[in-house]
């Protein structure tokens, strides 16, 4: 399936990732992506697409190609060093029961 000659892929509006803060005090959360010609346009589109029912009080958009992500293939080697450091968790330490909640 090739795109028709009249709409080469280069003419596609670039892809943006959308992050929405649902209310003051909470973090912005990734909620999806959309195509838009520039950042202002992406903001307007994000408002129309992702906040039609007051789902947000603040929106971030950023170009999808600006994201650097860890490799899924290196899941094990990348995250593994944390697995054998169980002393980083509070449950590693035994405290006498009479001490109560700590």
């Amino acid at each position, binding site marked *: *399936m*090739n*795109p*028709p000659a*009249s*709409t080469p*892929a280069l*003419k*596609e*509006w670039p*892809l943006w990732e959308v992050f929405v803060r649902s209310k003051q005090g909470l973090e912005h959360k990734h*909620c*999806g*992506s*959309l*195509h*838009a*010609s*520039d950042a202002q*346009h992406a903001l307007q589109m994000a408002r*129309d*697409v992702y906040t*039609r*029912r007051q789902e947000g009080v603040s929106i971030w958009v950023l170009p999808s190609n600006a994201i650097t*992500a860890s*490799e*899924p*293939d290196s899941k094990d080697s990348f995250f593994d060093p944390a697995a054998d450091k169980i002393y980083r968790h509070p449950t590693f330490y035994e405290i006498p029961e009479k001490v109560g909640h700590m």
Partner: protein
Amino acid sequence: MYTQSFSVADGEAKSGLKAVAAPASAEDAALQTHFDAVIDADGKIEPRDWMPDGYRKTLVRQISQHAHSEIVGMLPEGNWISRAPSLKRKAILIAKVQDEGGHGLYLYSAAETLGTSRDQMLDGLHSGKAKYSSIFNYPTLNWADVGVIGWLVDGAAIMNQIPLCRCSYGPYARAMIRVCKEESFHQRQGYEALLVMMQGTAEQKAMVQDAVNRYWWKCLAMFGPPDADSPNSVQGMRWGIKRISNDDLRQKFVDATVPQAEVLGVTLPDPDLKWNEARSHWDYGQIDWDEFWAVVNGNGPCNKERLTTRVKAHEQGAWVREAAMAHAAKQQARNLKEAA
């Protein structure tokens, strides 16, 4: 919002979907084993994870067909925006049609994470290669059709979509959660519009019954062919893309709808519709699958009209898309100059 339980091949895709090909190398076999283990554990697959080709192809086909259905589905209802009987109904209908556009976008975005571009998908729709829900190839003849689309078509779609929220592919499942949250409004506004009409004149009541008569069987067909004739369903179930079989979903829909029809005061046009005490379900009559396939294959009353309208809108919007890009490029050049 509307999916049809598509185990339906797109125009040229038939040969491409030979389920899982034999793994080529030891490395592929290991990846396949890992993938199978994730699926067996009811885990999620994310865009950059390894996945079998067949899984990717099935998802691209199903999600893009689903997205196309949302977009084409805007047309029959959009026809009634200018003729809605009151300002209230007009505002509701505009909001609903806007939602459908949004649902299309969530789904296109989910499909794009699988490496298919938006342009490729639109080309598939516009060239007639890709399918969309056959229900939109029927005309909306009177105002009650708009209510019936909300009540029955969206009602059937919800039955299909709720299990998709648990689909094994993360982006599709997340899109469906968003869609389902918005969907309940669609069904309720349709049912309520019909309730109002049923309190009206004899002609208005007759319009509702007429719309129900025309849409009922087509809604049952939306769940897709019977399980026995859906060979792709088994693979979809194995992959955690499909969770409940076509026939089971159809039965759930019938069981849920019969009491709603009673409250509304309409008759569902099926003489075989009977409560089956032994099964604790409603029995229903034979669906005309020949008609279903004729419409899926392009020969419904509105296939050509829908596609023509869609292509025309896309072509006539080309200058807007190009102008927006030209504007963005100009702004960027200006900003660079000012910074220099």
